[in-house]
């Protein structure tokens, strides 16, 4: 191990922890502080500079924000855990390693039951390893993107990306921002963009919110969630934002940057209805179609997965958040997209389970209730098959390798590719820098298959010298 500054807690980190938590978002943070409170020695690793993950992303201290909570819903849930984290760190119960991106987890050789986590640390990408008896994967999710003509124009940004840039850097991509795609995140994004001074001409939602009606019991058991929705709805009304449901942005226009979008009405399968297209001028578009669980570390370890109602793949977990691999737990979005409150609850459940304590009934009940709500939501926003109807032959699907829809269709129709993997080999779609994170769901849909679970050999770029330094595969 090197002696770079990012490695300063290396002595503590090298010690064998009871639990290593990957990710300091709501699930990981809640798990780490709960586990430490139950007497475990915990190492918490996070790729970001500050705890909170994507949901509780907040301005860097240098920006001197007096009211970071103004950009957040449920900030106190974060503030109390962050205070607990600080207390546990100063008491030596938690080793907190910020800016540590874990890229693989390997089982220790037979006879020494435990795990080694390999990370790249700090801007200099120094290698770091952490050993622990048990591991909790709280790696969260990234945004699902469905391409449309013009989506590579500057000014078209991820809805979550716009939110992240706003929360962390206090910046907006433009002054007139259309928010489009599908899922409840859009309302939150539109609300904060408007509160921060952007004009939001419309929120364009592909699903019909009436999809929720089929799940009335799950809705009624979650009054808090309904109130949350009403808060966002109210904020939108106050800022004069129009909500267009069962509509989609089917094209972004502009040469060097976006200048307008075409919005069309959709049928129930998300097929654009002829004659309904109209233009909305704007200088930015924030777009996203829900979230995809980030599973590379888990699938790399062989954890079992299951299909979710939103057409993503999530981890198969038991009532105590155990994966199918003994010694590995997971909490939060990795088990299916469900939001911050569910992630906090699951993190606490996992911590109890790892500490060998009974899971408090209150936590179990909250999990059941919120999971039911999440399932209702996931089903309502599942992309309809007709969305591919707004692609043109020359629309880039893979942003990194610039592979257009026409080449992917050719691979499927003329060359007989039956799955995303074969399409990738024939067209290079998904072979670039992002390893298919942006185009994966779209390529799978064009290949006519269900999305496959994340399988990437490395979860972030790793200097070759670190790979070379890995020990040979352990014997079991």
């Amino acid at each position, binding site marked *: 191990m090197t002696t770079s500054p990012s490695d300063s807690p290396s002595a503590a980190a090298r010690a064998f922890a009871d639990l290593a938590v990957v990710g300091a978002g709501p699930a990981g943070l809640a798990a780490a502080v709960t586990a430490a409170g139950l007497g475990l020695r915990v190492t918490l690793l996070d790729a970001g500079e500050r705890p909170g993950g994507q949901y509780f992303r907040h301005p860097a201290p*240098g*920006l001197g924000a007096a009211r970071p909570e103004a950009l957040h819903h449920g900030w106190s849930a974060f503030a109390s855990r962050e205070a607990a984290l600080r207390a546990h760190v100063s008491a030596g119960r938690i080793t907190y390693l910020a800016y540590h991106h874990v890229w693989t987890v390997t089982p220790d050789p037979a006879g020494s039951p435990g795990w080694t986590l390999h990370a790249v640390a700090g801007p200099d990408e120094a290698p770091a390893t952490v050993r622990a008896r048990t591991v909790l994967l709280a790696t969260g999710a990234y945004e699902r993107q469905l391409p449309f003509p013009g989506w590579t124009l*500057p000014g078209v940004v*991820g809805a979550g990306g716009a939110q*992240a*840039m706003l929360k962390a*850097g*206090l*910046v907006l991509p433009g002054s007139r921002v259309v928010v489009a795609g599908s899922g409840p995140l859009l309302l939150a994004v539109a609300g904060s963009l408007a*509160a921060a001074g952007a004009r939001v001409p419309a929120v364009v939602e592909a699903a019909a919110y009436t999809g929720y009606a089929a799940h009335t019991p799950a809705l009624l058991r979650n009054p808090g969630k309904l109130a949350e929705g009403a808060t966002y709805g109210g904020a939108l009304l106050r800022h004069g934002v129009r909500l267009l449901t069962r509509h989609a942005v089917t094209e972004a226009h502009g040469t060097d940057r976006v200048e307008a979008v075409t919005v069309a009405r959709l049928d129930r399968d998300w097929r654009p209805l002829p004659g309904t297209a109209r233009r909305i001028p704007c200088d930015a578009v924030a777009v996203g179609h829900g979230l995809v669980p980030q599973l590379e570390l888990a699938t790399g370890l062989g954890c079992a997965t299951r299909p979710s109602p939103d057409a993503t793949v999530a981890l198969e977990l038991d009532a105590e958040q155990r994966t199918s691999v003994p010694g590995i737990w997971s909490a939060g979005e990795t088990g299916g997209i469900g939001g911050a409150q569910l992630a906090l609850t699951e993190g606490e459940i996992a911590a109890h389970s790892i500490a060998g304590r009974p899971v408090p009934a209150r936590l179990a009940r909250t999990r059941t209730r919120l999971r039911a709500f999440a399932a209702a939501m996931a089903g309502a926003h599942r992309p309809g098959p007709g969305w591919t109807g707004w692609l043109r032959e020359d629309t880039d699907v893979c942003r990194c390798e610039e592979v257009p829809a026409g080449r992917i269709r050719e691979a499927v129709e003329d060359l007989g590719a039956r799955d995303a993997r074969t399409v990738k080999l024939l067209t290079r779609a998904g072979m670039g820098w992002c390893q298919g994170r942006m185009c994966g769901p779209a390529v799978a849909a064009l290949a006519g298959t269900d999305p496959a679970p994340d399988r990437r050999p490395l979860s972030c770029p790793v200097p070759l010298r670190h790979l070379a330094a890995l020990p040979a595969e352990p014997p079991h």
Partner: protein
Amino acid sequence: MSEATRGRRRSPRDLVGGTPAETWSLRFDDRELPAQSGQSIAAVLWSAGILAWRTTRETAAPRGAFCGIGSCFDCLVTVNGRPNQRACLVPARPGDHVTTQEGTGRDDLAV
């Protein structure tokens, strides 16, 4: 935000009551852009209204930040001569020189 709207509309900084600890200027190609301590390079560029800072390998199309969280690699930029840095993750530091990145950012290695 455009010049015309600045000052009239509320800004993100108003919303959170931000008072940056320090401001300095970041060199981007041959321009000087105002930067605040704690902002990523992408945030500095966005505040200056710049949305694109690289061109793609195949079609030389302009690109900038997309995912904002380090997973799409669309925001690659050259920082102090080091190509392929993710602008949305790298904090802007005083004295940095950021340059537009063309293609792979390794033109110096081209044969």
